[in-house]
């Protein structure tokens, strides 16, 4: 027996990184939104490393921000250090990474959620969904409350039938000893949702007072103001360093000798773990020749002594964890505050989703975050915001939003998930994007602000600023194209100082900027703009000019890809009726139900000849229609 606890447009289950973005996006779009979560003290909790960003992931945070999301703003307020990575490489792969103050991050997020219009927060464990005729109607909690809504987003992360494993100890649990979610997972299975078992792990945390930092190398943050969000105006300059140390042959010997005690190797763990986050025992076994592995010591916040031992993720028994630490310089006397552990959990096979993150078989039901087979806070947040945008769209009857692979890493992530699926926890890597020169850290706003504004998640004020920035970039680029620099003394001097060969004849300022050794600053001294331009405008002018050849080439490729994306596949297509498609391809097409021929061509098992036939079939349908009319 349940009681009627209220009606909403959108219900979000879970307040992890996916849930928070989802709820905020939905509420911002004007949908009446309810967020239900197990523990209101732990919203946007980071169960693993205290850091946000990095290659690809950092760009995602910028993209979320350009769409009007929250992650960037919160980390800008709560980090203990921030660094720009890959500064020695090209602009396409530059990325920010921040070390987070975990408790502060939670606080800041909670404050934001509590003050969001249209959003209701409630603690509770959801046990079932209310589904009628293949359509979701609401949710039921263990306290017998029934909430009704037009769309429901499940973002329950690693909680689904979670099982924690340390050595030979195992028990049902969510991350960090929170309660696991059992019935909801079983219920989803009853509803016909296919699930797989994945696994991940986390290292031990040690007490900072017991670490001898003198035996480690310091890793400071950048001492220039940096921020993820385009709206951040206050910068944290008082930063806290991380520390670097290494494992050695003694550490590896202990691991080798005790492999039998590892649940990974004893067969106790059955879930598939991610290759990119192997445990230390994995690393030692697979790369036996490596004499040492890096370990980063990362403070978990300003007001806590807990230190995260990055590099020692393990599910070996606690006493072995202790022995391992004893061999590592600086950690010989380190006291473990929490032991490392592995966690196994259920996740949804993501090819069951539309690119909107709605389940194909249950109308109105969305899933986002780690539950979709990904791993990582940023990946979760990215799906969170998209699911929130689309759940609200469904509830309020407006068009859904799907980003494509050339628009954003978010588009790459979701397209990969729903088109190819994944057989291990999925992490974004820059190499997953075919157009990464277009998907840069610096141009996330240029790519997505327009969209954020259109869907009502960007304020007028911010939008106007953005328009102004765009205008300045275009004007300055045009100006440089119009200016001819003669090879006079001043010009030659600057070119030579930069290490270039002297000019032989007059050049356009824009062409001079294309030379590898030239920067905008140098061009500026030769031909200053009418009034001083903002740094981010200068940066854009420089990047867009310098890489214009490559950018033009990428745009051509994108054009070609878009042609295939534009060939839509009718939703009611009957793949069994198409003569000549290979059986494997037919099965895959029926499973994935791609929205476009482009998407179809990315499904593994669908060959060029199948795509060709599909194209002909669709075109023929159009012809048939025309000739019937």
């Amino acid at each position, binding site marked *: 027996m349940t009681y009627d606890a209220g009606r909403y447009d959108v219900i979000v289950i879970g307040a992890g990184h996916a849930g928070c973005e989802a709820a905020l996006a939905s509420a911002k779009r004007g949908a009446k939104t309810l967020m239900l979560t197990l523990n209101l003290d732990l919203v946007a909790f980071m169960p*693993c*490393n205290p850091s946000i960003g*990095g*290659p*690809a992931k950092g760009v995602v945070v910028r993209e979320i921000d350009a769409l009007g999301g929250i992650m960037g703003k919160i980390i800008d307020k709560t980090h203990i250090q921030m660094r720009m*990575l*890959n500064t020695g*490489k*090209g*602009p*396409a*792969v530059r990325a920010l990474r921040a070390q987070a103050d975990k408790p502060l991050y939670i606080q800041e997020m909670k404050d934001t959620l509590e003050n969001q219009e249209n959003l209701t927060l409630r603690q509770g464990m959801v046990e079932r969904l209310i589904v009628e005729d293949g359509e979701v109607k609401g949710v039921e909690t263990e306290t017998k409350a029934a909430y009704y809504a037009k769309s429901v987003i499940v973002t329950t992360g690693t909680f689904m039938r979670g099982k924690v494993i340390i050595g030979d100890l195992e028990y049902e649990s969510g991350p960090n000893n929170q309660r696991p979610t059992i019935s909801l997972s079983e219920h989803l299975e009853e509803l016909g949702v296919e699930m797989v078992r994945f696994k991940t792990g*986390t*290292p031990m945390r040690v007490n900072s007072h017991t670490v001898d930092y003198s035996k480690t190398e310091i890793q400071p943050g950048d001492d220039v103001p940096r921020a993820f969000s385009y709206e951040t105006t206050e910068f944290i300059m008082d930063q806290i360093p991380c520390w670097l140390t290494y494992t050695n042959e003694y550490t590896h010997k202990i691991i080798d000798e005790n492999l039998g005690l590892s649940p990974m190797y004893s067969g106790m763990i059955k879930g598939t773990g991610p*290759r*990119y*986050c*192997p*445990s230390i025992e*994995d*690393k030692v076994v*697979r*790369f036996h020749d*490596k004499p*040492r*592995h*890096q370990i*980063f010591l990362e403070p978990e916040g300003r007001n806590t002594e807990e230190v995260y031992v*990055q*590099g020692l*993720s393990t599910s070996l028994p606690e006493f072995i964890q202790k022995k391992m630490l004893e061999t590592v310089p600086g950690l010989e006397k380190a006291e473990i505050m929490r032991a490392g552990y592995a966690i196994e959990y259920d996740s949804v096979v993501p090819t069951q989703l539309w690119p909107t993150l709605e389940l194909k078989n249950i109308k109105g039901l969305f899933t986002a975050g780690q539950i979709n087979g990904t791993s990582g806070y940023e990946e979760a947040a990215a799906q969170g915001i998209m699911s929130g945008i689309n759940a609200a769209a469904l509830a309020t009857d407006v068009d859904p939003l799907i980003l494509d692979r050339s628009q954003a890493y978010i588009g790459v992530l979701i397209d990969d998930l729903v088109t190819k699926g994944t057989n291990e926890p999925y992490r974004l*890597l*820059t*190499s*997953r994007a*075919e157009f*990464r*020169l277009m998907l840069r850290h610096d141009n996330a706003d240029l790519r997505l602000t327009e969209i954020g504004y259109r869907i009502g998640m960007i304020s007028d004020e911010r939008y106007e600023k953005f328009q102004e920035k765009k205008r300045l970039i275009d004007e300055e680029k045009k100006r440089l194209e119009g200016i001819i620099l003669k090879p006079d003394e001043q010009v030659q001097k600057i070119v030579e100082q930069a290490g270039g060969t002297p000019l032989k004849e007059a050049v356009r300022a824009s062409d001079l900027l294309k030379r*590898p*050794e030239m920067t905008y600053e140098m061009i500026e001294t030769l031909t200053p703009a009418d009034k001083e331009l903002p740094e981010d405008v200068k940066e854009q002018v420089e990047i867009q000019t310098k*890489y214009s050849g*490559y950018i033009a*080439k*990428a745009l051509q490729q994108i054009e070609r890809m878009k042609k295939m994306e534009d060939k839509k596949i009718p939703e009611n297509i009957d793949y069994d009726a*198409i*003569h*000549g498609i290979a059986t494997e391809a037919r099965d895959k097409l029926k499973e994935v139900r791609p929205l476009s021929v482009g998407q179809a061509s990315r499904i*593994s098992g669908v060959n*060029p*000849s199948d795509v*060709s*036939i599909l194209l*002909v*079939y669709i*075109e*023929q349908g159009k*012809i*048939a229609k025309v*000739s019937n009319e």
Partner: protein
Amino acid sequence: MDTDTITAISTPLGEGAIAIVRLSGPDAISIADHLFEGKKLEKQTSHTMHYGKIIDPETEEAAEEVMVSLMRGPKTFTREDIVEINCHGGLVSVNRVLEIVLSQGARLAEPGEFTKRAFLNGRIDLSQAEAVMDLIRAKTDRAMNVALKQMDGRLSKLIQSLRQQLLETLAHVEVNIDYPEYDDVEEMSHQMMEEKTKEVLQEVQKLLQTSQQGKILREGLATAIIGRPNVGKSSLMNALVHENKAIVTEVPGTTRDVIEEYVNVRGVPLRLVDTAGIRETEDIVERIGVEKSRQVLTEADLILLVLNYGDELTAEDEKLFEAVEDLDVVVIVNKTDLPEKLDMERVRELARDHSLITTSLIKEEGIDELEQAIADVFFEGELDAGDMTYVSNVRHIQLLKQAKRSLEEALNGMEMGMPIDVVQIDVTRTWEILGEIVGDTVHESLIDQLFSQFCLGK
């Protein structure tokens, strides 16, 4: 609908049969006009045939004599403009024509694409839909099979190994990008990247060369024997023919109607071209003039220049040297059984890098050395016929050319000082193109490589 112009060989390939290169699309006629020496097709009425030559616009050389049929849409198979080039030179000439057409902006048609266009343009009845699908399927599968069969195991292995080398390089770059904090992975430098790129480029170029040599193998190396009267040209010819059992083939139907003699010298097929003509010429330099003789000579792949040991070097001899300056030449000093009158020092000077062989044909001396010298010219001393990987499939050649271009762009980028992750765009592209040759373009393998090559993680 599709707006590009497609082309393919549209007749079954068989020895001696007339083969047709078909173009279909909006630019079919203008492309054909570009390479057709004959009537301006643009100005001709539809459904007519015209005689002329195909000229390679890049070298301005005449490639083939052909008949071209012109059909304007919509009364054609595809309802688009169609040009069909009828070649009668068999496989070699039809491939050559196809390559020229491709170089002028037509795209190689997908298997069954003409039929597909016919269908989509409403030329084929809807009730025939199933048959069309079957056809496309069958053609695609067959084309795949043929392409795979045409690719001998060595080629496939070679391409795979090039891909693997690129993949390891790419994974290395990726690891630097995605895991910048890992100090134990060496930073991929421009120099390392450049070395790898150059290595692969070299291999690709070699393969492309073999596509040229593959052509020669089927067609024979056009060989001209030249020299003043009486130096021993006929004797040389006879010696080669005698030693190597000449196959005399008539090539009917061509306007030339010449008799060409094929001899196989150490695995190198020689086609002794127009030797009759040249032999009968009293003084080729004087008769047709230096300019003209040069033209005759450029059509040959190999020149055998014969001198007389027992005679003084004349101005004519010197002119001959001049005429063959940039060609592949073997210089033969014949009649060494006679007392030396020839200024050998001067001859050596004139011969420069060309190989210089001395023979006495009458005593059957020096013929072995001569044959070796001929083989060396062809294999550039490096390769052995049995060991060679040939690329002969037009699709493969096209893809290799693309691969070459993108490798060159990568090198160009490095020269311009582009960052490694930008240069890498072209390297990745190369890897994908090579994958198309062996039928493997799965992107995941880069990520697999990444995690198997490097130790990463928290």
